[in-house]
């Protein structure tokens, strides 16, 4: 039912655009946000297409993207910029956020909950109607141009519940929730992304959904679209399908040998031996 010739031309049409299949109305929402200068928060499990979506939207809107992968050591300085030592004394170097503001680009903070809460407060003046970025250290106050857009994302798994975002940060964004694509769509993504045949894609997606049913009970994480793409890529490359699933879907998800062997039973049931 999934048919490669349907998806392939679409890809050729916009050679410049990354391959992206919308899940719902996120493209529209993003464009509205962009046009009306609203910051956007994207939440969703790992590997469900958040990064891909942003790159796609950036290409569509013709804006560069500055991506920052947040971690708990990230400080405001890393976002805004710092003085560096050069040949003739010190000089100021813009951080990614400052650069995005100056250029009117999209600044994307991935896994924003990983950053400490005092780091994210630098976003506050940028994300209300002032849209300014004060550079405390140089005394500059940058006014964001209309093309500047701030996008943040995180994965609301319960491991992150304890971290969370400050409500005052959180309530500065319009938010959209991503989930794993519906089965049909995920098949199309697999076909489009890896070039695998529709039937294998369907089996892989069914397998992934079976494994996703185990989330929180037997597995901490659900099998992501990214891992499915990996499995499809291995299979297409000639790797034995069952073993491809072991390598791309089972072992990455569990260290427990009993759980792994149970998952292999699910693989066998879905793919056949």
């Amino acid at each position, binding site marked *: 039912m999934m048919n490669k010739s349907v998806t392939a031309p679409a890809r050729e049409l916009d050679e410049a655009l990354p391959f992206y299949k919308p899940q719902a109305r996120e493209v529209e929402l993003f464009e509205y946000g962009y046009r009306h200068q609203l910051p956007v928060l994207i939440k969703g499990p790992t590997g469900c297409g958040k990064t891909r979506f942003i790159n796609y939207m950036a290409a569509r809107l013709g804006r560069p993207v500055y991506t920052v992968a947040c971690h708990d050591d990230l400080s405001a*300085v890393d976002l805004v910029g*710092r*003085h560096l*030592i050069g040949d003739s*004394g*010190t000089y100021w170097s813009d951080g990614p956020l400052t650069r995005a503001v100056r250029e009117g680009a999209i600044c994307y903070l991935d896994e924003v909950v990983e950053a400490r809460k005092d780091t994210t407060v630098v976003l506050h003046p940028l994300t209300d109607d002032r849209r300014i970025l004060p550079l405390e*250290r140089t005394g500059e106050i940058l006014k964001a141009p209309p093309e500047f857009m701030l996008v943040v994302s995180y994965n609301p798994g*319960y*491991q992150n*519940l*304890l971290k*969370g975002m400050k409500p005052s940060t959180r309530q500065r964004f319009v938010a959209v929730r991503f989930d794993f694509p519906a089965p049909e769509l995920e098949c199309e993504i697999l076909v489009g992304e890896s070039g695998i045949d529709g039937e294998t894609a369907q*089996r892989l997606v*069914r397998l992934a959904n*079976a*494994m996703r*049913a*185990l989330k*929180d*009970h*037997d*597995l*901490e994480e659900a099998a992501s679209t990214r891992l499915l793409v990996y499995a499809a890529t291995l299979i297409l490359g000639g790797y034995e399908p069952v073993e491809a699933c072991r390598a791309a879907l089972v072992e990455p998800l569990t260290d427990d040998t*009993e*759980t792994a*062997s*149970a*998952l292999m*039973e*699910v*693989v*066998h*049931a*879905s*793919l*056949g*031996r």
Partner: protein
Amino acid sequence: MEEKVGELWHRLITRLAQDRYPQAAVCLTELDKTLGILFRALGGDGGLRLETAGATHHHARRGLLQRIAGSATKIELAWRDEHALRLPEVIDLFPQQSLNRDLYFWLAALASGEQGRVEPWLEKNQRLTRETLRRYPGMAGRYQRLLKAHLSQRPDPARLRPDEAAQEAAIRQALANPGAVSHLAPARHAPWPVPLWLHPSPPWVSQAGSDSAEPENASAGEAQNLSHERSRRGERTEMPEAERGLVTIRMENILSWGEFAKVDRGAEENEDLDQAVEAAEQMEQFNVTRDGKSVASKLRFDLDLPSDACDDEVLSEGLLLPEWDWKRQVMQEAHCRVMTLQAADAQPMELPARLNRTAKRLRAQFQQLMPARLWRRGQADGSEVDLDAYLRFATERGSGQLTNADNLYLDLRTGARDLSCLLLADLSLSTDSWVDNHHRVIDVIRDSLYLFSESLSATGDRFALYGFSSRKRNPLRFHQIKSFDEAYSARTRGRIQAIKPGYYTRMGAAVRHAHRLLDRQPAQRRLLLLVSDGKPNDLDKYEGRYGVEDTRHAIHEVRKAGIQPFCVTIDERGNDYLPYLFGSGGYVVIRKPQELPRKLPLLYARLTRE
């Protein structure tokens, strides 16, 4: 004459053919984790537990030898109801072990598609088979192998009476070509059992008595027999009222049967049946189906319940907590009463000498391990220059600004962590059982509390210790050993010493109360550490899925409030229900209870590291 001999010979063969193959046997316990995962992955309900199915009577014609021996009227079949997926305890139907294993997997897959729809047995199994094969093409090979092996064991239609032969042929066709057979002609005997299918009429019967699912495979005479059979199995009916139905078998019967079952006599229809025989038959069913727990130990529970403890001082009573009713999906407000107690006569005491060495080692470990050591930036004084601050200072001065040369240093400090942990220990009567020749579970828990307190007091983390047990919903006994506001002291140790096994385990209520206590803690990170030795249970309907669902609900609320729940259990069967309650990363099973005291502090260290 020849005919007679032929028939005898045939019966002999039949008997041989259905002989079991103990050397190829596969036990449920070897596979239960795997089967559980497979069942859930293929769409089965995550709230169901895996249990062994009791042997069920089948009404197929028995061979002469079997009739003489009185054997082979029973066969273990699989079915699921709203509480459990029930699979045979052992499968030894086939001479090859791999086939017996295959059968377990096949049954789990089949049951995962079962939605509890009411439909005739024959149709249901054909439909499930077809759907399973369609959704999971990888099951086809397995099914074909099983089918081949099973068909060779079924009676040969050519040797049966015409009515039975027709039935047998139909069953064979339904197996080989699921969906093809819509009707089973009546015959004198029920068809030969089909171990590849789910049970025709699970011994669980709804109270409403909807017998529309009556299998059509029974002839008139047999139907009567069947319904008789079913009413006798009425004990699996849901208890209509929470309060009804505990031990009502007379005491002398209990003692003579050696076990008792939780039977709701209120729902019994067949009063005129010989009570003794009936009790015996229930025994037969119950000792296999009910969680494998020996009912004898429950009996002791009721006879041995601690007399209403007068050595506890009541700190507060009358607080009412809600409880979750999963069946109706509603919160029952003000459903459980909580009574906070404290051991009144506990004497201040030193740490028991046998724990001294371990405690000392743990304290040392905790001292250096716990409070994270951090470089503080921009300090007025410190061991290193803060280059960032210095750079800024130099730039500003270079550009002509007047700035003060202060706060240019880095300092290494041990910041106390902003963390509160409430340890909640299960003090139900099951903690009275022995883990080895010298220690009861309660002793292990006691030592754990000692070492846990010793370790934590070496850090700045705030902690509280509580224990709980329950007797139905009124009251939940909540023992305060150490509150957050008290310091760990000789008095605390006295109260740890004084803990003793109590009643039952109404875990949901205890979790909810602990949640309230933690809610009042201002700390940034809050941890609820549950130490338990078994699943939620109580005398009323709390036993079984109700209790599990209520506890799950309470834990979900805890998590929603930003408190981290974690369970440490010594229940070997913890893997059956804990993932459902706490998630796969939310619990650990300690296989050797003796190791709990030493492991608990280390677990805490691991949980709170970061």
